[in-house]
């Protein structure tokens, strides 16, 4: 399909919409820069994941249905959050599988995946002269298979690395544990607070020990958790969503 014919519905996750508008803006600007015919359906809310992961899937049906209504008219649905997209693809099985529901599930893409797989682009002309550490969020990595996992035998690949490695001046730092969970886990972060915080601390410290200046990733929920720790502990790390880096120019 040619880019011009693509009609893309931009999905901005609820917490990004409310708390991290800059991530939504970077995502939109980036897609526009890439020549995508991108629209933001107003009145969108959430994918239902916070409820599903907490065991309240039944109560999330209205949310999921609303998501389908908002996005059913688009060829692709693209969002800057692997875990939300994973939820749409894997857990919308609670809805009746109408043509609309099936199409929305099949055509939902995480931002990096959309750029690399659908648009077929890796070099977006961005420049960002910093030492960057990539947090590979689990739902994107293991759920959407955006990259290879250290525990699975096979060739190494990574959608996010493909994009970051083409950013001018960017130095991608290698971590001690390349794909360990950060401990966010939605409501896990409050109901299992101790372990969540410990996991986050360990992840952040791995980045610091690896000489990282800017911690990035494709899922802002993980980043929010780690940024919370970094700010509280006044650690020398900046946190940015990958869309913000890919949208950067000197």
């Amino acid at each position, binding site marked *: 399909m040619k880019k011009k014919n693509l009609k893309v519905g931009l999905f*901005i996750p609820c917490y*990004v*919409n*409310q*708390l*991290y*508008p800059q991530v*939504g803006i970077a995502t939109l600007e980036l897609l526009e820069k890439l020549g995508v015919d991108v629209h*933001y359906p*107003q009145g*969108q*809310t959430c994918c*239902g994941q*916070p*409820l*599903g*992961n*907490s*065991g*309240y*899937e*039944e*109560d*999330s049906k209205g*949310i999921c*249905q*609303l998501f389908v209504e908002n996005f059913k008219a688009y060829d692709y649905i693209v969002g800057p959050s692997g875990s939300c997209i994973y939820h749409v693809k894997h*857990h919308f099985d609670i809805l009746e599988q109408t043509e609309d529901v099936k199409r929305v599930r099949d055509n939902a893409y995480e931002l990096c995946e959309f750029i690399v797989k659908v648009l077929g682009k890796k070099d977006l002309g961005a420049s960002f002269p910093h030492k960057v550490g990539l947090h590979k969020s*689990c*739902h994107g990595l*293991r759920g959407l298979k955006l990259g290879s*996992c250290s*525990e*699975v*035998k*096979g060739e190494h690949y990574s959608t996010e690395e493909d994009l970051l490695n083409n950013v001018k001046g960017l130095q991608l730092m290698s971590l001690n*544990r390349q794909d360990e*969970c950060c*401990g*966010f*886990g939605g*409501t896990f*972060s*409050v109901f*299992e*607070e*101790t*372990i*969540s*915080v*410990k*996991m*986050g601390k*360990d992840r952040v410290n791995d980045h610091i020990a690896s000489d990282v200046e800017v911690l990035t990733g494709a899922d802002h929920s993980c980043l*929010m*958790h780690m*940024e*919370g720790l970094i*700010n*509280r502990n006044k650690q020398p790390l900046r946190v940015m969503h990958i869309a913000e880096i890919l949208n950067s120019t000197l």
Partner: protein
Amino acid sequence: MNHAKRATEFNKDEAKVNWHDKALWYVREKRDKSAHNVHGWEYLRELGSALKANVLSNLDTYLVQFEENAKKNGVHVHWAADAKEHNEIVLSIMNKHKAKKVVKSKSMLTEECHLNPHLEKHGIEVIDTDLGERIVQLAEEPPSHIVLPAIHKTKEDVDVLFQEHLGTIPSQGNPEYLVGEARKHLRNKFLNADVAITGVNFAVANTGGFVVCTNEGNADMGVHLAKVHIACMGIEKIIPREEHLGVFLRLLARSATGQPITTYSSHFNKPEEDKEMHIVIVDNGRTEQLSREDFRASLHCIRCGACMNTCPIYRRSGGHSYDYTIPGPIGSILSPGKDLKKHSSLPFASTLCGSCSNVCPVKINIHEQLYKWRQVIVKEEPQPVIKKTIMKTAGKVLANPKLFEVAGKSARFALKHAPRFMVYNKLNAWGNARDLPEVKGDSFEEWYKKRNKNNE
């Protein structure tokens, strides 16, 4: 007490948590190296999974076939519906032989059935002979891991324990010395035992034989010296044919410890002359788990412990935080089937990162089952009022764009303007150790509307 509280207890000593995490991560790395060395590893896992699925779908046939063949080999076969019956059967065999001393190699099933206290109550000395199990037995604790039962103990802990119970001299935790002393102590137990109890790793339907895997040689030391061998197995331990051991033995040790195979893989078919061999086949909730379509694949488990070693929560909360015979991710999908109320916090003791499913040698979809148990638990067990209210309200607000807009505005307003003590208080577990996001004024949607207006 739920998992979170027990995990918090364990985390009071952060240095110990770091040590525990590192020790298990080291095992996980050994597993990666060893598994990735095998040509066709991922296909091997698929085979393991498909074989186990075939077993479960024909389990009655295979069990009968196994029994028939075992009996032909002169083995006594017993059936136990639950833990109580299992314990009674074992005791009755002991009584028949007037046995007073038993050596036991590792068997998670006998742990699950609480066999030791039952036998001890009847005046029988039970000695766990796997070194890790002996350590926790002396410490009067349950194992904290199914392959590494004493992984929560430091070598200094073991030193003190052995001084007290085995009369060793202080060695600052010298592993060679401690293992040597344990060898002497347990050798004496092996030589004097009347009965040896073992678990079963795999029971082969087409031969009636079974395989027991150890590194220490403790199962064999017990069995080949005692007059009577009792092997206890869950019904799911069956595999169809002997050649399928070729799949499972390739998977097991690599997944468990990163070894290419355990030191000893002992194949028992017939008892040695003048000796008796018994097999106790146990249900104890397994047929019920078999009935649950979403959860039956949990019965594929071959007890390698790989999901524990890779689990970032297990590594930082310790096996005892699960308060169940089988801890970690696999325990968290098995335990709710046994007692939903008691174990209802376990499926939530996960971020659903999915690494457990990736390492599982028989490809159990562990993290998906955790998600599914959560749905069951919320329906069937009373939930904390706050959580329930938040979730129910969120369900309504997020299904309604107008309500969402209002809620979003007020939340951002509160975050921005509320005094710090209101945002960070004891009710807000987020804020104990983490800052909340800084609020930037407009939401994305508000920005988008303004931009569109300006462009008009």
